[in-house]
């Protein structure tokens, strides 16, 4: 992880060890995504010789775990929690409720119908 972590913190949201790690993973994934996609294509192309496909498989497996998109988790920007995060607001349910009642979320109001 230390080889990928930026020297200077560039996060404006709530800062947490886990948030830093997640942010680093996202940046690393964005940089290596074309390479990963190319390897995936080689693996899935049945017209290529089997040897190249197996080599591509090995290479993909040996890539650092930070390059994998599955390691990325949406975290709350106010509390850094990884569970109960709503995608539309990037916040946990409780933080969403606090901000909605304070009027900080445009268009969101208490529902009654």
């Amino acid at each position, binding site marked *: 992880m230390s080889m990928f972590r930026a020297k200077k*913190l*560039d*996060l*404006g*949201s709530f800062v947490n060890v886990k*948030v830093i790690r*997640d*942010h680093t993973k*996202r*940046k690393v*994934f*964005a*940089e290596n*995504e*074309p390479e990963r*996609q190319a390897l*995936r*294509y*080689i*693996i*899935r*192309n*049945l*017209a290529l010789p089997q040897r190249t496909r197996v080599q591509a498989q090995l290479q993909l497996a040996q890539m650092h775990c930070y390059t994998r*998109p599955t390691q*990325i988790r*949406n*975290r709350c*920007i106010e509390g850094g929690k990884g569970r109960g995060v709503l995608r539309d607001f*990037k916040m946990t349910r409780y933080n969403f409720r606090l901000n909605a009642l304070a009027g900080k979320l445009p268009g969101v109001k208490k529902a009654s119908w």
Partner: protein
Amino acid sequence: MAVPRSRILDLMKVQCRIFSHTFNPEGQRLGNKVLRQRLKGPALASYYPRKMGTYKDLQKAYPEWEVINEEEEHRREMLKIIKARGKGAPKKKRTAEESKKFKNKKRAAERAAGTAT
């Protein structure tokens, strides 16, 4: 009546040329769906908001200007009220011994209870 296969293939080739599709009449798995996928790296990387200027930075940059941080002022006022009531944070224990006062009391109480029964 039946159309020869070669004619249909030619038609498909022309269609693919016009509409920029891939020509694959036998349906071989060539992994083109991976190539068609959109790259989602930049979208994921911009999830967390970047560091922007805060009140502290404004004060540092322009010290002669008076900058009022409302949230900070509100927090300080609430602290004053709580302290006036006597409900503020407890004093920091200097040495380890001061923090062990509670433990000794507990042990003494247990011993007393043990000897009594």
